[in-house]
């Protein structure tokens, strides 16, 4: 039996492989000349300051590099994360992969999401000269220009953006790409203000291929840590970087690790929180679907720093693709020897498991999460002790968010000083936000913390056609704040009464009724309350009812003050963060949009949204008398008087359910909802 063995004495200076035959080391093997290193290995060595790259990684990097930047073939990368697949990427991939004429000149790969969700399906064609042609909104007929670009290796009509590798043939991150030609400004502007440190591989590499991740310098930080650094070095570096947890609270990651490292316990655990319950946030999903090995490497570095042998990823079941890709990543890392016993020949061993949640928002709260993993109902418990002191089955447990872990390999590779070049002193680094709602370019964006919200929304998201009224930030425990010139960092958001939370940014225009939206969010939190605290369970349900009274035209000024008082009580008396923060949307809207509550109390809905407070009306100047609304109304609530023209349309307001089908279906926008004096 011949197997490569590792000389433990060589560990500190990199690994030297020897040949072992039936357990006997052959000394001749040591004299073998070192194999020549692939250019990518030299490139990574000089670029990222990594020396002594283990042969295992060097070999995989060379393999991955040939896949990622083929020298003689074009490579078509189809964005196949959840958003891309929902927009039809699967069919496009099937059509392109089935082409026999690609055999010698083009490879087709499924990649993750580059973040530009607004133009899914998105296809990247890389030609051997290091150019990337990006095609957005690729519909069924849109595959021809892609095929021609791959074949002829030059620009075809239909491409949106051409990027060029800074050093052609080397691609280790989105940052290695320069814009060469802008054809569609939407896509160029979307990327212009971003800094992609953490999401730099997303949409470029194949998430199911370990070698491609390694070709971008992946697992080098882990190798360096395991072979050359002490656990304390890692904790010191993370502490120096000032990295704050991305799961919502913004707790300093270094301090948390330090706390767990200090405990004397022999069994410790690391858990990656991928419950991502905040509606409107999908950064963890995108990272897991697009660059799962970065997440694993972050977990591995944390595990090494805290001297942990067991880690878990806790994923919500609504994310089947993320679960599949993380599972796949664990299996391939294990097969390559990057997980399991004595990783890379060091004395460090690690197993990573996956736990799937079954649909309960409160389980994202760390003590509730632990409860589920112990086979119990996901009810939060009182802290202290903090999980870092006594967590899963009583063992010290470090729980961090997925995005937090994804930051770690970057910091360990580039150093804390460079990390601090982005962001502010108190909020260093970059943050991923999910920009959605009434904005023309929605997607997944990575920006330095402290960036102005107007920059994110107008420069990246594109000025929307309608004026923006408010921003809903940080999920249902975040806040709703007026659109204006504030900065996105932990301190500013706290001063506004909101929270960055996990980073959802929902843009709301004047058509959105804030009282109705708050009612919806409070209702969500009431449903998700675990029920341990009476004030959280019944208080939130009652609060929803009061808000409902306003939207249903049953409220008055007393309702508004009752809402305010009850919210304070819920906030002060609840045990866990769910109850305490569930009223943030109420507080922020009462602070900034109080008049909307008062208008509802008077029976008006300024957004003309709440069914009980609106009526429908025809705008005669726009109506062409085409009868579409009349035909469509399920209630027969639109009546036609004899004659011709818009004057003959009458709404039977008693019959009308305000389903808005007529409003949506009128091609001329001749039907409008009105509220208040107009009715």
């Amino acid at each position, binding site marked *: 039996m011949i197997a490569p063995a590792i000389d433990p004495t060589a560990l500190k200076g990199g690994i030297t492989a020897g040949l072992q035959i039936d357990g006997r080391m052959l000394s001749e093997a040591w004299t073998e000349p070192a194999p020549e290193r692939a250019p990518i290995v030299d490139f990574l060595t000089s670029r990222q300051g990594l020396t002594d790259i283990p042969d295992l990684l060097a070999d995989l990097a060379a393999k991955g590099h040939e896949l990622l930047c083929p020298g003689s073939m074009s490579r078509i990368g189809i964005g196949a994360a*959840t*958003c891309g697949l*929902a*927009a039809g990427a699967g069919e496009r991939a099937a059509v392109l992969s089935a082409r026999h004429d690609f055999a010698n000149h083009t490879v087709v790969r499924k990649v993750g999401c580059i973040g530009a*969700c*607004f133009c*899914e399906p998105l296809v990247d064609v890389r030609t051997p000269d290091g150019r990337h042609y990006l095609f957005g909104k690729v519909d069924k007929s849109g595959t021809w220009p892609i095929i021609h670009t791959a074949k002829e290796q030059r620009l075809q009509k239909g491409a949106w953006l051409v990027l060029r590798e800074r050093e052609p043939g080397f691609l280790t991150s989105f940052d290695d790409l320069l814009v060469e030609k802008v054809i569609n400004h939407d896509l160029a502007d979307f990327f212009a203000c971003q800094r992609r440190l953490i999401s730099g591989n997303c949409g470029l590499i194949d998430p199911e291929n370990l070698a491609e991740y390694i070709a971008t310098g992946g697992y080098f930080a882990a190798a360096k840590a395991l072979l050359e650094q002490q656990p304390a070095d890692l904790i010191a570096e993370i502490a120096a970087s000032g990295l704050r947890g991305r799961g919502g609270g913004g707790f300093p990651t270094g301090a948390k690790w330090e706390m767990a490292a200090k405990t004397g316990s022999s069994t410790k655990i690391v858990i990656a929180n991928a419950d*991502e*319950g*905040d*509606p*409107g*946030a*999908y950064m963890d*999903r*995108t990272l897991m679907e697009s660059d799962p090995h970065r997440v694993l490497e972050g977990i591995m570095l944390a595990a090494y720093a805290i001297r942990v042998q*067991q880690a*878990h990823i806790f994923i919500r*079941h*609504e994310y*089947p693709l993320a679960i599949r890709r993380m599972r796949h990543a664990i299996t391939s890392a294990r097969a390559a020897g990057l997980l399991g016993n004595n990783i890379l020949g060091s004395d460090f061993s690690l*197993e990573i*498991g*996956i*736990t*799937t*949640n*079954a*649909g*309960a*928002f409160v389980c994202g709260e760390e003590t509730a999460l632990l409860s*589920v*993993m112990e*086979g*119990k*109902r*996901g009810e939060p418990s009182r802290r202290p002790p903090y999980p870092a002191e006594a967590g899963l089955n009583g063992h010290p447990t470090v729980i961090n968010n997925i995005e937090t872990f994804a930051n770690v390999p970057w910091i360990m590779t580039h150093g804390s000083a460079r990390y601090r070049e982005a962001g502010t002193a108190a909020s260093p680094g970059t943050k991923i936000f*999910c920009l*959605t*709602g*009434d904005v023309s370019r*929605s*997607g997944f964006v990575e920006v330095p913390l402290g960036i102005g919200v107007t920059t994110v929304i107008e420069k990246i998201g594109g000025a929307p056609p309608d004026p923006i009224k408010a921003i*809903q930030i940080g999920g*249902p425990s975040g806040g709703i704040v007026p659109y204006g010139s504030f900065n996105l960092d932990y301190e500013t958001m706290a001063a506004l009464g909101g929270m960055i939370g996990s980073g*959802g940014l*929902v843009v*709301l225009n004047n058509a*959105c009724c804030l009282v109705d*939206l708050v009612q*919806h*969010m409070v209702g*969500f939190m009431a449903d998700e309350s*675990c029920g341990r605290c009476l004030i959280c369970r019944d208080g939130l349900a009652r609060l929803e009812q009061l808000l409902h009274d306003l939207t249903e035209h049953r409220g008055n000024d007393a309702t508004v003050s009752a809402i305010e008082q009850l919210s304070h009580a819920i906030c002060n008396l609840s045990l866990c963060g769910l109850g305490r923060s569930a009223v943030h949307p109420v507080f922020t809207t009462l602070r900034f949009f109080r008049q909307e509550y008062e208008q509802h109390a008077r029976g008006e809905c300024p957004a003309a949204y709440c069914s009980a407070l609106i009526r429908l009306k025809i705008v005669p100047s726009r109506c062409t008398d085409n009868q579409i609304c009349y035909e*469509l109304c399920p209630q027969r609530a639109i009546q036609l008087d004899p004659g011709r023209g818009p004057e003959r349309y009458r709404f039977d307001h008693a019959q009308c359910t305000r*389903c*808005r*089908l007529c409003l*949506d*279906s009128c091609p001329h926008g001749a039907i409008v909802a009105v509220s208040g004096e107009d009715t």
Partner: protein
Amino acid sequence: MTTFENGQVGEIEQVFQALAGTDRQVVNVLNTIQEHYGYLPEQSLHDVSRQFGIPLANLYGLVSFFSGLRTRPVGRNQIAVCCGTACYARGSEKVFTRLKETMQLDADGTSEDGFVTISKVPCVGACSLAPVLSVNGVLEGKIKPLQVTARLEELQRNDSPSD
């Protein structure tokens, strides 16, 4: 994937064994069973109770805690409407109402003929395509209430009640 022998004692042990050592939590076993049957049959809960030494009453308490777990069979098709913030702000509630009004549903959201189960889900993570519908696990974005009838008819054409 584990193969289930319907109702056989030991199937839970099989599921349990098939999971990696680090993955052997009750919630993973429950999710795996539900993935297979679409719901959690009573017999399987008895088996889980035995395997994990959790009293049956506690296990039911656990199952009812999670909104994603069901103890009754589902329809042949499953439609879930996303009711996350982004989808809600873009009108998903109206889509849901339209679906509900078009079909006759029981308390579990299943139509009497077993054709479809309609439910709401919190954010499925495709907010840029809001409002989002999940039809038999496949996401469809930018849905308008107006399209609902046509989409249901399309499903009905491909529906075979004998399955």
